[in-house]
C-alpha cells in the first residue's frame, strides 16, 4: 500500500462550483499535511498546510483532516478558471525533510 493515494481525476467543473479534492494515507502517525498546486509546465507550489485534526481555512480554500478515516481533503469554494491546475497532497516522511506525494488531481474550471 502506498503511503498516500490520490484520485488522479481529471476533474472538470463549471466556474463557481465547490470542488473537493481528496487523499488517503496509510500511517496514522502522520500529523502534518500539505497541499501543493501545480500549474501547467511549472513546478508545484505550497498552497496550504495543516496539522492533524480539524479544518484550516485560507480565503476560498479549506484543508480538512479526518484522522479516524485517514482522509485529507481540499475544498475550493467559488472556483475560478485560475484554479485550473494539478493539486498534490503531501505528507512528511519519517526524517521530516522529505515528503510523500500523491500523484495529483488535475482540475479544470470551465468559465
Amino acid at each position, binding site marked *: 500500500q502506498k503511503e498516500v493515494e490520490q484520485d488522479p481525476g481529471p476533474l472538470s467543473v463549471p466556474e463557481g462550483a465547490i470542488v473537493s479534492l481528496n487523499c488517503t494515507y496509510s500511517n496514522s502517525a502522520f500529523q502534518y499535511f500539505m497541499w501543493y498546486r501545480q500549474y501547467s509546465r511549472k513546478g508545484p507550489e505550497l498552497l496550504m498546510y495543516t496539522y492533524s485534526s480539524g479544518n484550516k481555512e485560507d480565503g476560498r480554500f479549506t484543508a480538512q483532516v479526518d484522522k479516524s478515516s485517514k482522509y485529507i481533503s481540499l475544498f475550493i469554494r467559488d472556483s475560478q478558471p485560475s484554479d485550473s491546475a494539478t493539486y*498534490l497532497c503531501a505528507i512528511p516522511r519519517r526524517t521530516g525533510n522529505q*515528503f510523500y506525494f500523491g*500523484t495529483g488531481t488535475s482540475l479544470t474550471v470551465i468559465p
Partner: protein
Amino acid sequence: DVKVTQSSRYLVKRTGEKVFLECVQDMDHENMFWYRQDPGLGLRLIYFSYDVKMKEKGDIPEGYSVSREKKERFSLILESASTNQTSMYLCASSFRLRGRRGYTFGSGTRLTVV
C-alpha cells in the same frame, strides 16, 4: 521569497549523451532534492543532499548521479541518457520555519531523450 532556479526549461538530448541539469537556490538551504515527475506515477525521488559534498540515493537513483560542490548548487547528471529518462525533472530545497515546512520547487526541466 526563496527562489529555486533550474537552468533549462526544455532540453532535447540524444540517447547515450551525458546530460547535466543544474539547480541553484538562493536562501542558504541545506537540503536539496531531485525528483522526476511522470503521468500516473507522480513525483519520485532520485537523489538528495543535506550538505555540501554529501549525497544520498532516493527511490530511483539508477542511471543518475549528482554533484553538490557548493551549498547553493545541486546538479543532476544522466550518465548515458536513455529514452526512459524522458520526463519532467524538478529540483527542490526544503524549508522549516515557525511550524511551517515543505519544499520550494524550481519550474522544472522537461527533458526529451530521442
